């Protein structure tokens, strides 16, 4: 198995106009199969860093590599292929209101051109697993915040991506569901060697996870806690 970093930030910066940098000189490395938490105070730039990681933003400085490829040099179709390997749980869910829970979860599979019959069982099982087996046809407007979050998580993991990026994935669910969802990420991480990057304020979850922890402060990434095997991976 390749030990090529799944995600690498080399002195990445982001600023809008002449104002202060939103992100400055941020460097990090995520190895295949790693599980990493990104913490930091509100407004530190966690969501911005994640947006750069899932290619929603372009850095104004530095270099971002995904699966060994310099994203700044890739053409749109190649970037689209990279995005298919990433499952994203957005902080604001970003479910499509005119689609049912089932259709929202199936969205990445439709984008890939898969026929509905080929994924029906998987999508149904996944939604059942997150406790929404009886809400397959429900529109997002009829779902609670927690239910929406579970649909968003199911959508992110349905393609069994190589990298999962989640922004506060347990922010709107109760502790029990939060634990259950975290187990889903952990299971994907262990069983399928999926790399997971989670931004969270839930320090209890972080402590229980015993995973690598990055802290974002003043626009820079600081390693706060790292399993011994990974300590040498973060660039200085």
């Amino acid at each position, binding site marked *: 198995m390749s030990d090529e970093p799944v995600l690498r930030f080399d002195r990445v910066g982001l600023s809008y106009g002449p104002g202060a940098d939103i992100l400055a000189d941020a460097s990090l490395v995520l190895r295949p199969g790693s599980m990493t938490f990104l913490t930091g105070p509100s407004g530190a730039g966690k969501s911005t860093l994640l947006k750069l990681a899932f*290619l*929603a933003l372009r850095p104004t400085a530095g270099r971002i590599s995904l699966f060994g490829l310099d994203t700044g040099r890739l053409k*749109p179709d190649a970037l*689209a292929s990279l995005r298919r390997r990433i499952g994203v749980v957005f902080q604001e869910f*970003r479910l*499509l209101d005119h689609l049912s829970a089932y259709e929202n979860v199936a969205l*990445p599979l439709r*984008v890939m051109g898969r026929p509905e019959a080929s994924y029906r069982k998987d999508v149904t099982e996944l939604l059942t697993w997150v406790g929404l087996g009886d809400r397959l046809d429900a529109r997002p407007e009829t779902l609670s915040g927690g239910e929406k979050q579970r649909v968003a998580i199911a959508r992110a993991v349905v393609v069994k991506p190589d990298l999962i990026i989640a922004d506060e994935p347990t922010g709107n669910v109760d502790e029990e569901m939060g634990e259950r969802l975290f187990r889903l990420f952990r299971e994907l991480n262990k069983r399928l060697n999926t790399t997971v990057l989670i931004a969270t304020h839930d320090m209890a979850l972080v402590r229980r996870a015993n995973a690598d922890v990055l802290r974002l402060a003043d626009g820079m990434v600081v390693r706060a806690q790292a399993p011994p095997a990974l300590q040498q991976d973060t660039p200085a």
Partner: protein
Amino acid sequence: MSRHLAPLLPREDAREAALFFVVCALCFLAAFSGLVSRAAYAAAGAWTSEVTGQLTIRVRGSDADTARALAIVQATPGVAAARALDRADAEELLQPWLGAGGIPADLPLPHLIAAEAAPGATGVGDRLTAALQRAELKTTVDDHVVWSADARRATDTIGLIALSAVALLGATGIAVIAFATHATLLARRDIVELLHLTGAKDSFIAGLFERRFLMLGVQAGALGALFAFGAAAFILFAVRQGDAQTWLLPQLSLSLADGLILGLSPLIAGAVSMLAAKVTVMRSLSDMV
């Protein structure tokens, strides 16, 4: 059994209904202008073919002078046929101005000779004038080609104006559709961004808009063409019902060529809509990462 999946772009909203109306109206105007343009050219063609080669010779003199003139006309090279118009013919010609039975018996009527030039013959009018002058007959040769050329120029101008209107309406349609597509894209930016971030290629996203606007263009175009057909049929019916001198009007018929104009309108509207959508979407997507 497969589940029925909702389209990735939501069903049309009020904005698309407004666009549908605009495209429909533009197609109506374009199709109707196309019909008028074709009719003007057809009228010009009909007039020209009808009068080309026809000449009228007015003789100022006695019946004997008319007989001499007729003999000269018939002997002139390039004349296929000629005959003197009798009083009944002259009365029929004057009837639109003087009314039936409105010509007093003692009113002197002009002596007229109707001649027809042989197909392809040129300069017949000039030759006739020269021959009749040599015979010292007081005559006026009216070559229809002279005024039919003016009529042709007039109808050509009408046709050109109508074609310009079609072109202008087409350009307006493209601009309106591009603008509306951009507005729709902005309104659906959440969907476009999500599809983009989910790994959809630009061509996939553009395809969603292309299909939507192709259908909109074809449907609106078909309705516009239908209205144009209705308008043309109504005018045709009204003209035929009335007592108007329809020979002077553009030949607004519903022929095969008209059917072609009406049939092509929705296809052109659809193609233009699809192309405008594609360009707009691809340009907008190129601004994203």
